[in-house]
């Protein structure tokens, strides 16, 4: 659909072929604008700080992990960001990575909406997928939480993700399916209306369906969205996912990043979250085998830090490749990376102690005037950065999570 923005496509819908002619005429005279995308990557077990942060302020070549990054001039490493209210947070802090909700381990903890979902509401309407939640591990929750604080299960099977994005569908069957679902939705709404008007059985309680009602409405919208996108063909791409039984962990990360790249490149979605956590079992990366979680409790012991840094370096290697590839894809005068904000971070500042101070955070791409390395004088709430990102993407809110002021960490 080159030459036509999704918004235009949406406007014309089924009449698109007719509209195409005038659009293509206009496209020739008007400079093309490119959509902005954003991605959040949470490396749930953090990075070993002495290897991650540059030893000399501002000089990424003094960081053991980051010195080989190839897109150094298009990223900023932030030092001294934190989430408040995580004093005893354990692994649950991952739940709050993009929400900033305090005390995730508390028994009656209810999460709040995550940053990516706020952004998806603004940026998601024009693409086939409003957002894409990914994870390397199958456990039903990751970084994305809806506006009621309910976890949005991420996708962890890369073949499934590929098929979702690019696989063939039986359109007739799918259309019939959606119509059928829409009839059922009508019925469910009908039933709920009866409940509201008190026609339902004695003892019926309208409050019991509060959350259900919201969910049905959301599903209804989703079906409309899907029905609309049946009119557009999916991008046709060959499946190039890697299968490496020896380094399954690395292959998983690599594949998910590859899929993210393709999803952005084909404008299938503009918001992606990727959560990387692997609590159980040993993993193998070049040069080390061990439990990632076990090793992350290194207690500063060299025999643990050795293999742990191999794992972390392997992750950085894939992230670097991802950024490099985004930067190699030309879009107008810039690159895909210039139009994509990639946030790489973690819920843990120090996984060995389960603390959430000084969270390792990188913002890459997005055409900001990058500083390579920004050390904040005083600890600053990560939610301030989140708020700034919201503003940068036209989401007009006064505060987000625990944010306490507006900042200018990323200038354009």
């Amino acid at each position, binding site marked *: 659909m080159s030459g036509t923005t999704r918004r235009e496509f949406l406007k014309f819908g089924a009449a698109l072929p007719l509209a195409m002619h005038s659009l293509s005429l206009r496209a020739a005279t008007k400079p093309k604008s490119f959509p902005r995308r954003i991605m959040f990557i949470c490396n749930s077990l953090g990075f070993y700080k002495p290897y991650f942060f540059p030893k000399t302020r501002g000089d990424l070549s003094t960081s053991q992990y980051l010195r080989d990054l190839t897109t150094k001039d298009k990223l900023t490493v932030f030092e001294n960001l934190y989430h408040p209210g995580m004093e005893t947070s354990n*692994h649950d802090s991952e739940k709050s990575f993009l929400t900033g909700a305090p005390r995730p381990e508390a028994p009656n903890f209810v999460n709040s909406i995550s940053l990516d979902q706020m952004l998806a509401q603004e940026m998601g309407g024009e693409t086939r997928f409003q957002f894409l939640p990914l994870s390397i591990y199958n456990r*039903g929750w990751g970084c994305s939480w809806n506006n009621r604080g309910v976890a949005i*299960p991420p996708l962890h099977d890369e073949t499934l993700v590929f098929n979702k994005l690019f696989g063939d569908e039986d359109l007739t069957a799918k259309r019939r399916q959606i119509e*059928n679902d829409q009839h059922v939705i009508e019925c*469910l709404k009908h*039933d709920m209306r009866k409940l509201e008007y008190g026609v339902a059985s004695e003892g019926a*309680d309208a409050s019991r369906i509060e959350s259900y009602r919201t969910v049905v409405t959301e599903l209804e919208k989703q079906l409309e969205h899907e029905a609309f996108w049946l009119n557009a063909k999916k991008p046709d791409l060959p499946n190039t996912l890697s299968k490496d039984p020896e380094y399954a962990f690395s292959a998983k990360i690599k594949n998910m990043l590859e899929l993210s790249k393709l999803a952005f490149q084909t404008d299938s979605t503009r918001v992606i979250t990727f959560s990387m956590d692997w609590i159980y079992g*040993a993993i193998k990366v070049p040069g080390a085998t061990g439990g990632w979680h076990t090793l992350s409790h290194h207690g500063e012991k060299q025999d*643990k830090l050795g293999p742990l840094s191999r794992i972390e370096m392997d992750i950085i290697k894939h992230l670097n490749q991802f950024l490099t590839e985004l930067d190699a894809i030309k879009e107008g005068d810039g690159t895909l990376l210039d139009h994509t904000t990639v946030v790489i971070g973690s819920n843990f500042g120090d996984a060995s102690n389960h603390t959430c101070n000084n969270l390792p955070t990188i913002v890459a791409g997005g055409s900001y005037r990058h500083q390579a390395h920004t050390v904040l004088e005083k600890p600053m709430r990560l939610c301030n950065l989140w708020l700034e990102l919201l503003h940068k993407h036209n989401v007009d809110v006064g505060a987000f999570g625990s944010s306490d002021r507006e900042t200018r960490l990323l200038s354009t």
Partner: protein
Amino acid sequence: MRATRLIIGLIAVALIENVEVHQRSLLANEAKALFAKHCFGCHEGQTAEGQLDLAKLLDQSEFDATQVFENVATGKMPPANADQPPAEEQQKMLAWLADQQPKSKPNVYRRISRHEFVHSVNDLLGTKLDLTGQIPEDRGTRTFDSDRRIQLSREMLGSYFAVADVLLEHALPDDGFVDERTWVTNKLKDSHETYNIYVRDFKEGVLFSWTRANNGNSYSFFYDNFDPPVAGWYELTFDAAKVGEFAEDVSIQVHAGKYYYADDRPQPQRLLDVISVGNHQLEPKTIRVFLRPGENVSVHCYCRHNFRNRNPQQGAYIRQMKARGPLQDQWPPSRYAMLFGELPVEMKGHRTREHGTVTKLNNAESIAPSSGYQSNLQKIGGSLFVSSFQQGMEKAKMQDGSNRTFWHTRFEPTLAKPPHYVILENPYRHAIKGLFYATWSGGNGNGQIEKYEVYSSDDGKHWGEPIVSGDLETRLANEQPIPFPTATNSRFIKFLVTQSFSLDGRSLASIGKLDVMVSVDELLPRTTVSIKSKHSENLKHVIRRFAERAFSSNLTDAELEPYFDVATRALQRDGNFVQAAKVGFKAVICSHRFLIAPGEHTTELLAQKATLARILWLSVPDDKLRESRTPLRAQIAWMIEDQRSDRMFESLCNQWLNLRSWNNVSPSLKLYPQYDDLLDHYLPLETRAYLAHLIRENEPVSSLIDSDYSFLNQRLAQHYGVEHITGQHLRKVSFSPDVPRGGLLTMGSVLKVTTDGVDTSPILRGAWISKNIMGTPVSPPPESVKAIEPEHGTDAATLREQIEQHKSNDACYACHKSIDPYGFALESFDSTGQWRDRYRVATPHRGTFQFRLSGYYRLTSDVDASGEIHEQTFSDIFGLKKLLLTDNLKIAYNFAKIFFEYVNGHEPDLKQRMALLAMIAPNDCRMKDLVTDVLVYSLSGDVK
């Protein structure tokens, strides 16, 4: 009338409250005095023990007293060396704590879990499809799926919609049921040529002589000539016998997976079932399995006697496999009567099988000719032409289902000149979606195709532009699909070789398999079942019946109107009665009344039954339960007896004992070469059988910790070193006193799931026992403490030193003194749950890992399983179990709390804990009694 009753009620409540206020202040004064007497000695002022100033705490108007309550209730406080309050005084202290506890308000409603959804819908439709894997897990970090804090999300509802479709389509297929067929085969396809050392032709079948069980997924023997046409239940019968004189049974592991050949990255296979063979005479062994199209059946034999022992005359002889299916319980399937009652059923199709007949198993049945394979091309009546062929490598070899036989262009006596091609004829003009190609495998690669073009033509002369062209992998033995951009129904399709591999530069072409991609599905003989009715009144009746079963309630027309409405509209649209009913059914199982629990029920009694069915069966009440008038306790008893309560036992094992993390850890084959698929399959089953036994047979609660029996089979007995157990069915086995098994702690499943597969961690295991068995909650380490995760390393002695560091730090020791010691006692068991006296340390291997029976490890230091807990010492697991058993109350109380949480979806508050404590018979507390008491209390508020 109602209003008056309400007013009288309100007055009564007010009066009671007045009295209550008075009593409460009395109780408070009394209790505070008791705390002063028994506790303030240590817990008062600046220097209070454990920094707990009780005097200050208890004076606050509201405070969380859970920890104090737990310590008093379980007798942890006052400490053993202090004066103990008499029972009556203890009760008063607890009652007051419970009374002043700030009210917690758990959500009233919860979404039903994905397991409850799938089981309920299966039971409602009379199907048996495990589709939970297609619904994301939404438990998050909660322990139980029933947790009321978990809310429905759009994604979950979306997947319920999708799964409902699959279940409904399977139950009442639009296109009809594929007719049942029988396949008989004794022909094997092995997954790698060199593996023929494992099997040999024997009598009329195959002898599996050299058995091996590790990595069952990476090499296998597939039965040829059987491809399940549709997803469904099939009956597989193996005529098998044991060959050789040895004590063990031979196990036949039956897997399902896609056939592959010489592929180093095969898709993992599912273990369907295990057949135990001890008979020397051939016997038919039948299992029922669920298969999907595209899956093949593979077998794999194992016995320790033959483990990698190359003896050609011993092992399992399988004469043939007979497959029958897809099975329906009767014809037409009984669910039509269940769902549509008396409405007349109309059948159309090829179906000839008589009502409910079962094919007799017959040893003398002749063996099917091995050429029973039919390619897709043959199925659509097509044929092949080739540019040339070499003698013995004819075109038919591409169509025989094997890629070890192949077509080759002529190279002797003269070399055929290019172009090399294959033409496929499609005389009946089926829609062809593409081609399947596979290389000739096992050869030197000569002639393997690198580039191709495909043309289509209606006359076989004019071919035009290629419809598709591309590259093919040469090393890969798997089938490689060549999809066409759009399906073609042209009469001729030409596969032209434009480049092929050649060792010596000659122009050659060879193909192992070439076939067309068609929807074979459309060609299957089917029988459609429909309901001969167009009346919306009939439809309404059907919807009502279904909805009343699903909602466990009687329903008025007004309540049912939306469901009638959506179904009748569908009937008006399409005129298909069954399809219209399916729309109504789907709306019912996606409605709030079905997905949000508790639902709305006409009577209290129905509400109670619905709750019971959800807890014990993860389902909805059946007709028998809905109509039963049995008193509550008796009802619980028969429901526990019913097989469906196995679902609850499985849930408890998965959620409470955390066996759901089972597949997250696989033991290192370097350290534990004995660990195999069979063991992996049976270990969790032991735990499930044990827990089911404890509850069904009302065994003492102490059996959770220790007993002199468990449920073993041959493989588990070998693992535990128990002798003389033959055959793979689980049965109750008694242990002599020197066996450390019996009870949950020393079960292989628990011991495995608490490690990372390489090292054991006393901390993880200790935390598991603390949390799940002893009920001491484990809080995360305080901030600013450098966490340690000890590792055995090269010298295991350092492990203890590392953990003993906890002792030197007060902040750590406060909690770890009641965590680590449990784990120390379990150090006698390795990551697979096997007993050990010395630790193993992995040794390096050369090159890539090659499995060997002796593993890659050496033995290092001795295991020290001694420890000290609550000022009492033990020297090993036997000692620890003895110590734990002295605290029967604590174990029973913990189980009661766990089960309460499982049932209610939230932890008990302190008042509820008082009730749980009252249920526990101090000396003889039994599992079924306790489970029943907790259920009765949760349902009716009654305490026995």
